[in-house]
C-alpha cells in the first residue's frame, strides 16, 4: 500500500499557485500534514481525495495514476473535508445509509457498520434526531463516521478536530492512532498537539512547497540544542520578541518564561528540551529565511 505524490502543482485562476512541485511518498501510518493557513494543505487534500485535479504532476495509488482512474482510489478512500454539509432533514442513520449507498456498500454490512460507527463517535443516543438540530461538533462526528463507512485503506481527514470539545478531540486522536496500522491516514491540521499525539510521520508544508518530511523524532533532533528557556521581565518582552524567534511565553511570579529558538542563546538563557511546536516553528522560520535546503 503506497501513495506517491510526484511533483504536483496546482494553479488556480488568475495565476494563484497553491502547490508547487510538491512530492511526497506516504506509507501506512499516520502522516501529519502541518502548515500555516494558506500553505496549500486543503488543496493537497482535495487532490488526494479526487475532488480536484492537479495542474501538473501526478498522484499514484499503488502505482496507478488517480487522475486517469480515480475509482481505484475512491473505492478505498475515506474523506473528511474541512468544510462539509449534511442534509438537515435526515437523521444520522439515514444520512450514513444514504452515503453507504453512494459508496456502493452492501446494505446489511453497511447497517452493521453504521451502528458501530455511531457508537464509536458517541452519537448512538441521538441517532434518530434530525441532523439540522445537531451542533457543529456533533456534525463533525457524523463526518468522521461517514469517512470510516467503507473501511478505508486511505483515510484523509482535513482539520478533523475543528469544533470538537477537548474530550472529543482526545477521543478522536486515540481513534486515529487505533485506525492506523495497515492503512494510511493523512491528518491535515495546523494544531501541532493533534499531530504530536498521533503522527508517525510529519510533512511540513508552506507556500505550496514541502518544507520537511520526517518522523517526529527526526524533526525534534533538528532543533535539539536550539531551544532556550529564558526569563525576562514583562517590560523586556516586547524587545525580546523583536530580537528572537519565540515559540511560547508563560507568565510566572519571577517574570515571563520565554522559549527562544536559535543557534545562539540570549544571555542568561538555559538549554531546554525541544517539543514539536518548537521544531515546527524553527523549520518554518528557516524556510522563510531561505536557510533551509
Amino acid at each position, binding site marked *: 500500500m503506497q501513495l506517491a505524490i510526484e511533483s504536483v502543482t496546482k494553479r488556480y485562476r488568475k495565476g494563484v499557485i497553491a502547490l508547487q512541485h510538491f512530492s511526497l511518498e506516504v506509507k501506512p501510518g499516520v502522516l501529519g500534514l502541518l502548515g500555516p493557513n494558506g500553505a496549500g494543505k486543503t488543496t493537497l487534500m482535495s487532490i488526494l481525495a479526487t475532488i*480536484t485535479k492537479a495542474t501538473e504532476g501526478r498522484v499514484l495509488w499503488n502505482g496507478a495514476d488517480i487522475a486517469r482512474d480515480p475509482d481505484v482510489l475512491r473505492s478505498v478512500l475515506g474523506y473528511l473535508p474541512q468544510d462539509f454539509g449534511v442534509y438537515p432533514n435526515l437523521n444520522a442513520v439515514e444520512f450514513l445509509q444514504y452515503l453507504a449507498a453512494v459508496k456502493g456498500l452492501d446494505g446489511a454490512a453497511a447497517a452493521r457498520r453504521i451502528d458501530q460507527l455511531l457508537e464509536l463517535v458517541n*452519537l448512538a*443516543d441521538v441517532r434518530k434526531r434530525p441532523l439540522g438540530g445537531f451542533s457543529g461538533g456533533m456534525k463533525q462526528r457524523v463526518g468522521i463516521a461517514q469517512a*470510516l463507512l467503507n473501511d478505508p485503506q486511505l483515510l484523509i481527514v482535513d482539520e478533523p478536530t475543528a469544533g470538537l470539545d477537548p474530550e472529543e478531540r482526545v477521543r478522536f486522536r486515540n481513534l486515529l492512532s487505533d485506525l492506523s496500522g495497515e492503512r494510511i491516514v493523512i491528518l491535515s491540521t495546523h494544531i501541532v498537539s493533534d499531530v504530536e499525539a498521533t503522527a508517525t510521520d510529519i510533512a511540513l508544508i508552506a507556500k505550496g512547497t514541502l518544507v520537511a518530511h520526517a518522523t517526529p523524532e527526526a524533526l525534534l533532533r533538528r532543533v535539539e540544542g536550539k531551544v532556550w528557556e529564558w526569563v525576562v521581565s514583562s517590560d523586556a518582552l516586547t524587545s525580546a520578541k523583536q530580537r528572537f524567534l519565540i515559540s511560547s511565553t508563560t507568565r510566572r511570579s519571577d517574570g515571563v518564561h520565554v522559549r527562544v529558538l536559535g543557534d545562539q542563546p540570549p544571555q542568561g538563557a538555559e538549554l531546554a528540551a525541544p517539543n514539536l511546536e518548537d521544531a515546527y516553528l524553527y523549520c518554518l522560520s528557516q524556510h522563510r529565511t531561505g536557510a533551509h535546503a
Partner: protein
Amino acid sequence: MNRSRILYHMVHADFLERVRRYSFLLTIGFAIYLGYAVYARQVTLQLNHYRGVDNSAWLGAVIGLISSVWVSLIGFYIVKNSIQRDRQTRVGQILAATPMNKSFYTLGKALSNFAVLAVMVLILALAAVVIQLLRGEDTQIQFGALLSPILILGLTAVAVVAALAVLFESLPVLRGGVGNVLYFFFWVALLSISVSPLTGSRQPTGLRALQDFTGIATVMGQMREQVHQLDPHYEGGSSFGLGNFNPATKTFLWTGVHWSSGLIVGRALWLAVALLLALLAAVFFDRFDPSRNSLRTAVKRKPASALDTLAAQTFAATNSSLALPPTIQLTPLPRSGTSAVPRSRFFALVLAEFRLLFRGHAWWWYIAAAGLFIACLFSSLEDARPGILLAAWFWPALFWSQMGTREQIFSTGALIFSAPRAAPRQLLATYAAGVLLAALTGGGLGLHLLFARDFSGLAAWSVAALFIPAMALALGVTTGSRKAFEAIYTAWWYVGPLHHLPRFDFMATTAQSSTPIGYLSAAAVLVLLAYSWRTVRLAYA
C-alpha cells in the same frame, strides 16, 4: 456614521457581491436577449393590424412595458436570494451581531435588488437606441420620449418587485419553493388586474389607473385612442407578448405617452408601496436567529446543546477514560481484490435518492397526493387526463426541484463525489428517483390508460413522466438552485398543459396537444446535458 451612509454601504457591498458573480452575466445576457427579441420581432406590441413606426416613442413604450411586465416576472427570481446569500455565507451572523437596524437591512436589500434590476432596465434602454438605429424607420433619437416610459413604468415596477422579493425571503413560508411557485400566480393576478381597466379604445382614468401596476393599460389605452382617431373602424383590440403570429400590416405614428399628473402620482404611489413592502419585510425578518429556523423548532424539546450534553453524559457514564470503548469493534468489510465496493448497488442508490426526495415534507402532502392518484384512477378519462393530472403533476413540483441541487445547497458534494463512479451513478439514480415519483403521483392516470387500453395515451403519459424529472435535473445541475425549475415549470405548466396548448403541453393532457416524440427527445437531451454539465464541473467523472 450617519444612517444614509450606512445604507449606502450596505447596498454598495451587496450590489458588488452580486455583480461580481458569474450568475450576473446570465442576468445581463437575459436583458440583451430581450432586446434582441424586440429587434427580431419575437416580442411584439400590436393594435390589431397596427404597430407604431419604430421611433423613440414607440420603442420606449415597448421596452418600458417589457421592463414592467417581463422583468417584473423574471427579475423576481433573479433577485430573490439576497438574504439567503447572507445566510449561506454566514455573513448574516456577523451582521446580526452589529447594531444594524432590521428595517435598514431589509430596505438595503430591497435597494440592492432594485439596483440589479435597474441594470437590466438600463440595458434594455440602451437596446432601444440600438434597435431604432438598426431599423432605420426614424433615426432621430428623442431621449425624453424614449426614456420616460422605461424609467417611469419600468423602474417603478421593478422597485415593487425588488421589495416583494425581500418580503418573500423574510417570510419563512414564502422563503423557499412555495414562494417561488406562488409568485408566478401572484404575477398573473397582478397582470390581470393591471390590464382590467383597459376597455374599448379608451385609456383608464382616476383610481382605475392606479391599479395599472405594469402601465400596460395606460400605454395601450392611449395608443388605442390614437389609432381610433386614425381609423374609426378600429374597435380596440391589442396584444403584447411573445411570438408574432399575425404580423402587423399597417403602421401609425406614436408620439409618446401623455404623462398626466394623475399618472405620475399613480407611479409615485407604487414607489411608496415598494417602500412599505421593504419596511414590512423587517417585521418578519428573523435577523438570522437560528432558533427561528423551522428545523430547530422541530427539535425544540431537545435543543442542540442539550443533545450534545446528552451524548457527552452518555459517554461519561459508559467510559470513564478517554480511551475508545473496549466493546466497540469495527467489523472489517469484505474486500474483493483491491476494492471493497460491490459493483451492482445502483437500485439501492435509487431507493436512497427516492427516500431523500420525500424528506422534510408534511403528512398532508401525501394525503393530497394519494387523493389525486385515486381521483385520476376512478374519474372518467375525460376528466382525469386534461384536468386532475394537471394537479397530480403540479403537486410534486417542490420535490422535483431538489434534483441536482442538493449537493450544492447542503455542501455535501465533497462527501458524495469522492465515492467511486459517483458522478454518473448518483446522477442517474437521482433521475430514476424523479421518474419514479412522476410514475407514482401520476400513476392513477397511467393505470387508467392501461385499463382503457389507450396505449398511445399511455405512451404520451410515460414520456411526460420521463420529461418532467429530466427538466428538473438539468435545471438543478446547471443552475445549482431550485428556483429555476420552480419558476419555469410553474410558468410552463400554466401556459402549456393548463391551456392544452399544442407543442407546449408536455403533460400531453389531450391527444391533440400531445407531442410525445418531441418531448422524449427533449428528455434525452436534458439528461445528457445534466450529465455533461456535472462531469465538466467535477474534475473527475
